[in-house]
C-alpha cells in the first residue's frame, strides 16, 4: 500500500467511571496504533468490551480521544475539522434499533447526510439519490415513506448502510454491519461492500464478530483484547498461523458451517472471564487467561513486534 488513508497513533480512550468517592479510569482503548491503506479493508475482531467499537468511534470523534492522534490522508483529525471530515468518513452502526430516528421516514434518514452536507441541487435529485441508495442496499422504493419501526432488524441495518453511503465517503467504519442481516442477504451486502470498494476505492474498518466474514472481506485483520491490539497480520496469515494465544482460541471458537470440520475440531476454551477493564491485570492483559503466562508477562506489557511479512504480535512468548 503506497499511502495510508487512516493512521492511528497511540490512540487512548479513557472513560471516567464513578466508584463511590473515587473516579476510576476505564481504559476502553489503551495505546492502539494501526493504519488503513487507501481502498483497503482492515478487519477488527475481539470480544465484547475489548474496545473495538470504541476505536471506530474515536476515529470519527464520536468520542473525544483522551490521547493519541488520528490522521486522515496525513491531516490530523481535530475537533475543529471533524464536521468537514465526516463527509469523507462515515460509520455504519452496530445496533439497527437505536441508530435510526423513530420519528423520521426512511427517505429522511437516508437524506439527512445529503441535507447536512448539501449534496443536491433540487428535490428531484435528492429523491433520485435516495431511491438509488435504497436499491443498492436491497430496499424496495415503496418503503421510502415508512418509518424505521416498520422494518425488521435486517432491513433497518440496510437503511443505516444506505445513510453511510449517501455522502460517497472514502472511509467507512463498519461496526458489525452484517451481523443483523439474513445469510442470503449477507452475501449480497458483503459483495456490495466489495463492489463499492472496487468502484469508489472506499476503505473500511470492518468490525465484526463473524470471523469468517471478516476473513473473507479483509485484507488484513487486527485482533483486540482489553483495549489493546494483540496481533495484526494479513487475513490468511492470521487465520492459518495465529501466533498470539488469544487469537488461537478466538479462531478455534468460530463456528464453521461444515459438520465434519465442526465435529473434528478441538476448541481451545479459555479459562475464566475477561478481567474488568477497571481493574486491568498488570503487564499483559491476557496473562490471567493464558496458559503460557510467565513472570515476565505479569511485569511488563508486550508491544507489537514484527515476526516477518508484516505479522505483528504482542506476546513475550512468541
Amino acid at each position, binding site marked *: 500500500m503506497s499511502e495510508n488513508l487512516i493512521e492511528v497513533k497511540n490512540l487512548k480512550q479513557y472513560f471516567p467511571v464513578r466508584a463511590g468517592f473515587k473516579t476510576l479510569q476505564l481504559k476502553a482503548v489503551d495505546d492502539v496504533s494501526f493504519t488503513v491503506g487507501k481502498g483497503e479493508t482492515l478487519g477488527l475482531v475481539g470480544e465484547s468490551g475489548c474496545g473495538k467499537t470504541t476505536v471506530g468511534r474515536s476515529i470519527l470523534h464520536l468520542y473525544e480521544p483522551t490521547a493519541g492522534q488520528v490522521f486522515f490522508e496525513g491531516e490530523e483529525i481535530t475537533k475543529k475539522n471533524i464536521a468537514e471530515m465526516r463527509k469523507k468518513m462515515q460509520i455504519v452502526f452496530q445496533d439497527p434499533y437505536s441508530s435510526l430516528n423513530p420519528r423520521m421516514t426512511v427517505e429522511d434518514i437516508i437524506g439527512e447526510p445529503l441535507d447536512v452536507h448539501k449534496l443536491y441541487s433540487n428535490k428531484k435529485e435528492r429523491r433520485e439519490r435516495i431511491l438509488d441508495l435504497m436499491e443498492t442496499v436491497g430496499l424496495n422504493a415503496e418503503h421510502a415513506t415508512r418509518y424505521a419501526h416498520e422494518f425488521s432488524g435486517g432491513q433497518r441495518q440496510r437503511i443505516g448502510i444506505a445513510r453511510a453511503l449517501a455522502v460517497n465517503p472514502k472511509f467507512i467504519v463498519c461496526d458489525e454491519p452484517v451481523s443483523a442481516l439474513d445469510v442470503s442477504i449477507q452475501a449480497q451486502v458483503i459483495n456490495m461492500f466489495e463492489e463499492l470498494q472496487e468502484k469508489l476505492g472506499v476503505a473500511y474498518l470492518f468490525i465484526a464478530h463473524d470471523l469468517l466474514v471478516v476473513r473473507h472481506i479483509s485484507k488484513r485483520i487486527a485482533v483486540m483484547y482489553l483495549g489493546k491490539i494483540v496481533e495484526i497480520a494479513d487475513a490468511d496469515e492470521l487465520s492459518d498461523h495465529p501466533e498470539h494465544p488469544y487469537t488461537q*482460541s478466538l479462531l478455534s471458537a468460530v*463456528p464453521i458451517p461444515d459438520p465434519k470440520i465442526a465435529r473434528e475440531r478441538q476448541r481451545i476454551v479459555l479459562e475464566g472471564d475477561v478481567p474488568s477493564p477497571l481493574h486491568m491485570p498488570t503487564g499483559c492483559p491476557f496473562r490471567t487467561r493464558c496458559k503460557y503466562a510467565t513472570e515476565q508477562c505479569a511485569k511488563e506489557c508486550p508491544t507489537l513486534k514484527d515476526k516477518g511479512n508484516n505479522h505483528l504480535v504482542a506476546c513475550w512468548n512468541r
Partner: protein
Amino acid sequence: MNEENEVLLSVRDLHTSFKTDAGTVQAVNGVSYDLKRGEILGIVGESGSGKSVSAYSIMQILADNGNISGGQVLYKGEDITKWNEHKMRDFRGKCCSIIFQDPMTSLNPVFTIGNQISEAIRLHTDKKGKEIKERAIEMLELVGINEPERRFKQYPFELSGGMRQRVMIAMALACEPDILIADEPTTALDVTIQAQILEEIQKLQKKMGMSVILVTHDLGVIADMCDNIIVMYGGRICERGTADEIFYNPKHEYTKGLLRSIPNISNMKKKLVPIAGTPINMLNLPAGCAFCTRCDAALKVCLTEQPEELWINENHKAACWMNIKEALDEGKGEA
C-alpha cells in the same frame, strides 16, 4: 416406547397467520415435524421464513393479531393448541421454555435479575422463600456466571450481552423443562461468548436430557450443534435431514444457494454467490414454490404448483421440483 426414540413434541400441519392492515399473512404454512427426546433440532431460515413463528406457535406466545389457524401441536400425545390459557401457563416454563434473540429486550429492565429468575421458580415449583433464592443462585452458577450472589441483585443493564443471555438460559432452565426453544440465542453475541453459550446449551442439554429446538440463521451454529436440520423458506419446510445430508448433499435450490452464499474455509478468496432478489413478501406468496421468484433453476411448474416433500433417502426429505425432474429424466434414460 423406546425411551431414546420417544417423540416428545409433534407438530402436525401447523398453520399460523397474522391479521394485518394489509391483509392476512400466512407466516407458517403447513409445517410438520417431530422432536425426539434428547434431540437437538435446528430450524434454519431467513427472517420471514416462519422459523421463529413456528416456535412461538408451540408456546402460543404469538402477538395479538396472530393465531394458529390450523394443525396440531402434540406434546406427549396431547394437542396443546386446544388447551386453555391456564393450562398453557403451566406448560410454559415447566414443560417448554424459550430463550429469545435479544437478551436486552427480553429481560425486564426495572427488576433485578434475581427477581426475574425467582419469579419463574415461584410460579412453577413448590419452592418457598429461601429455597427459591438458593435455586436461582444455583442456576446462575450453572450457566457460568461468576459471583452469582452479587449478580442476583443487579439489574439487566449492569450485565454484558453474554451475561444477559446466560441469565435468560438460567431462567429458562430453572424449572427443568423437557423442551428448550432457543430462538437465535447467540445472534447478538460475539464469537467467543457464542462458543461459550452454545457449549453451555450443549452441556446442559446432555445433563438434563432435554430436547432443544435451535432456531437460527447461522449455518455455522447449526453445523456445530444439531443432529437434524429443517430448512424453512416462506413459511414452509423446503428441506430436512441429518446435518451431513443437508450440508453435503443439499437437494433444494434454496439450501444450495444458502451454502454458496456464506463464506467458508473452502471459498475464502472467491466471490460469494448471493441468492438473487430480496426476501419473500409474505403478503404475496407465489402460487407455487415460495422460492421460485429467486430460484435460477425454476421450471414452469414451480410457479404454479407447490412441490411435495419427497424422500431423497431415509435421512433426507426435500420439496423441490428439480428432484422430481431429475427422477423423471433418469427414468427416461433407463427406459
